[in-house]
């Protein structure tokens, strides 16, 4: 399988285009020919992370890294940061806007869903300084 590194931009509050990056990531992984279940897990994590940037972040980027036996997503934004990461990891805890909720998001399941579907999740965030989320996946042997 080829190795690959590709970076995408994500625009905050752009709900019409939100999700396009993740669908592109899904397409790239399908084309490479990864296992369908692995693609499902990566796509879901990419989408939840992308929506987090759209809903909460300033503008941001999603960086996809593909190696022969592993995939990683690094999602960075210049948004307000997460004040309490432990709380943000709790199912049902949400600070989403009314606008995000009207779109069907903001149920407080984003980060928990990412954790559930990934092999490793690291969050680096400070109030006022943006957020970096690093997610990785191993190709099942």
């Amino acid at each position, binding site marked *: 399988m080829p190795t690959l590194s590709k970076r995408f931009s994500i625009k905050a509050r752009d709900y*019409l285009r*939100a*999700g396009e990056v993740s669908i592109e990531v899904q397409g790239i992984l399908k084309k490479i020919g990864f296992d369908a279940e692995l693609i499902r897990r990566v796509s879901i994590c990419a*989408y939840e992370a992308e929506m987090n940037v759209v809903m909460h972040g300033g503008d941001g980027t999603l960086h996809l890294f593909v190696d022969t036996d592993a995939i990683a997503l690094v999602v960075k934004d210049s948004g307000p940061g997460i004040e309490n990461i432990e709380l943000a990891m709790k199912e049902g805890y949400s600070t989403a806007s009314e606008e995000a909720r009207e779109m*069907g*998001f903001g*149920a407080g399941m984003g980060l928990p869903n990412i954790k559930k579907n990934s092999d490793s999740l690291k969050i680096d965030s400070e109030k006022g300084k943006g957020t970096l989320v690093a997610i990785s996946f191993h190709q099942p042997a």
Partner: protein
Amino acid sequence: MELAQIKEALKANLIVGEDKLGMKIEAGAGGDLMSDLLRRPMHGVVVLSGLNNMQVIRTAVIAGVAAVVLVRGKEPDQEMVSEARSHGLPVLSTPFTMFTACGRLFRQGLRGLDQKLSE
């Protein structure tokens, strides 16, 4: 159950997916919370939604949903239609409310995503 039977049971309008009416649908789910749809494998699952926006289509594509039914007669806009079409995702619109639409499919024998619980 085939998608054509779902269309009939819901007296639905098929907006995208003329070529997919023979598709096998194994289960149904109803919901307006996108993250709920991203919790589990959704292959062969028809999703009924009261939300009518682009994120329903993108969530369905990401989650691998088989088909989307918009309830209460909602019609997707042109952007949603072309997005669904480009991903081969069937979209239907039913005049029934969420509760009634789910009930009609359940009565036809379509199961939900619940695990078996003891009574």
